């Protein structure tokens, strides 16, 4: 078997850093809480509508589980649920979050993503990827007109990095004891 074809656990990566697990039902609970926060909080403070809590949750679970399939499936579920709460067709956020979940899980095999700083930077990076994919897919698949505001997007990425720093500390309390 070639080196490319070997799984991460066979390369020894998985042995160095065991994949953490959440308490039973915690991932589903986190997703539900993220969806509720996404639709409820902007009602009280409209500025919070600029945040994508669902994306941050997908990145957290994917980085934590270090399993591309789990990350992908979680991303897909989160994205389709998010699609259901919008007026757009189902699948737009589904595809984006599937790719984000898969990528985050794959990256966590090769990067030490347990440090708060690293997770925060990754969250900002994935926010930018998410936005880029959203623009591309909206234009390519739905024919929507794209209004790309790059400075605003970069600023929002920094805000998401800060939010990830706080949220992920909170989410870590739901980890299962080793």
């Amino acid at each position, binding site marked *: *078997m070639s080196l490319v074809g070997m799984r991460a656990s066979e390369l020894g990566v998985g042995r160095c850093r065991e994949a953490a697990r959440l308490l039973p039902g915690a991932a589903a609970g986190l997703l539900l809480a993220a969806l509720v926060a996404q639709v409820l909080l902007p009602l009280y403070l409209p500025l919070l509508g600029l945040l994508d809590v669902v994306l941050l949750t997908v990145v957290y679970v994917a980085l934590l589980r270090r399993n591309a399939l789990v990350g992908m499936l979680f991303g897909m579920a989160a994205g389709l649920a998010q699609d259901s709460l919008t007026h757009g067709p189902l699948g737009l956020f589904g595809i984006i979050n599937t790719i984000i979940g898969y990528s985050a899980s794959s990256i966590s095999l090769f990067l030490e993503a347990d440090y708060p700083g690293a997770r925060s930077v990754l969250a900002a990076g994935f926010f930018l990827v998410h936005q880029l994919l959203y623009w591309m897919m909206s234009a390519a698949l739905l024919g929507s*007109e794209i209004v790309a505001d790059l400075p605003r997007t970069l600023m929002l990425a920094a805000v998401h990095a800060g939010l990830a720093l706080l949220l992920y500390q909170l989410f870590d309390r739901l980890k299962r004891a080793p």
Partner: protein
Amino acid sequence: MLELFERYRNVTALIAAVGLQLILLGYQVRRDDDMTMLRSWTVGAVLPLERGLHLSFDSVSSVWRNYVWLVGAREENAGMRRELDVLRLQNQELRREMERSSRREQLVGYQSEIESETVIAEVISVGASRDSREVFVDRGQRDRVRPGMAVLTPEGIVGKVQASYPRAALVLLINDADAAVGVVLGGSRVRGVMKGRGGVECFVDYVSREVEVEVGERIYTSGDDRIFPKGLPVGEVVRLAEGGAFQSIWVRPYARLDRLDDVLIVSSGVHQQLPASPLPQTPGALMPLPPPDAEAFISSGPAFPGLPAESQLNEANKLKRRYRAVAEAQGMRIGVAELGDPAPDFNSSPTPALEPLPVDEAATPAPAQ
């Protein structure tokens, strides 16, 4: 083959997942099928929780204001201070209640004022996408709310119902990038299409550059989209920009789209008249009145001397003469009125009765002997 699949298992799964969703997406776009069942499940799972939290927040904050905070006040202050704090809190509570009831009262007043049948709904949450402008309201299929119904406030229109679920409905706001509304400019009565841009302001398209538009001009619904009844206030022009073939008109909606509380859903719309134009567009240059030759017949006498003048009038001139008499009987003169003057009532009969035109006796030929 199996080894190959095993080697690229994750990538294959990713491609399959993305591919399936692409097919799902393509199916919806092509068939215009909204996959209502999946949406209903998600809305059914999220909204009750959200509604519960919404009520819990209100209850907790109410308990905190009315009990916990009072206990703290009692410990810290005595006598008049405590009473003052209680009164202040009660005052705040009453003010809030008053504002809420005033808003609701305003809404109910507006509801009875407009001819369209409406249902009052409360905004309970916003949509899940950062890039969309949409809200959920607490009325749905059980209240006979259907997709395509217009949503408005006394200030102006808000959006349209995009999807309806048993106990909630999703409303697409007019400033969403996918929203468009048929509008008419208040001054010139020229029609256009207002599109959302995702921000606070909206954009009116398809208005010719020759139309004179002014900042501050009011915009109303035209009814052309068959969603919003005609004549509802939309917003006012805030700026104009140089565009291409059409004018670039930016409009700020009257409705506070970022602070929606209670709204009206139009269950049965009735078009209404546009209000009188606050900015009448008078022509830049008015031509002078035509010279009096057109009226030479009546003013200078019959063309064929000798014959009775009355018999030489054609039907048009007879009618014209009658209308002139009617106007003069009402103290007005045709052709000299200013813009804005009331028009004569041509249905009333002229008084006094029309006198026959004089016969030009000097020019009358002698009867044949």
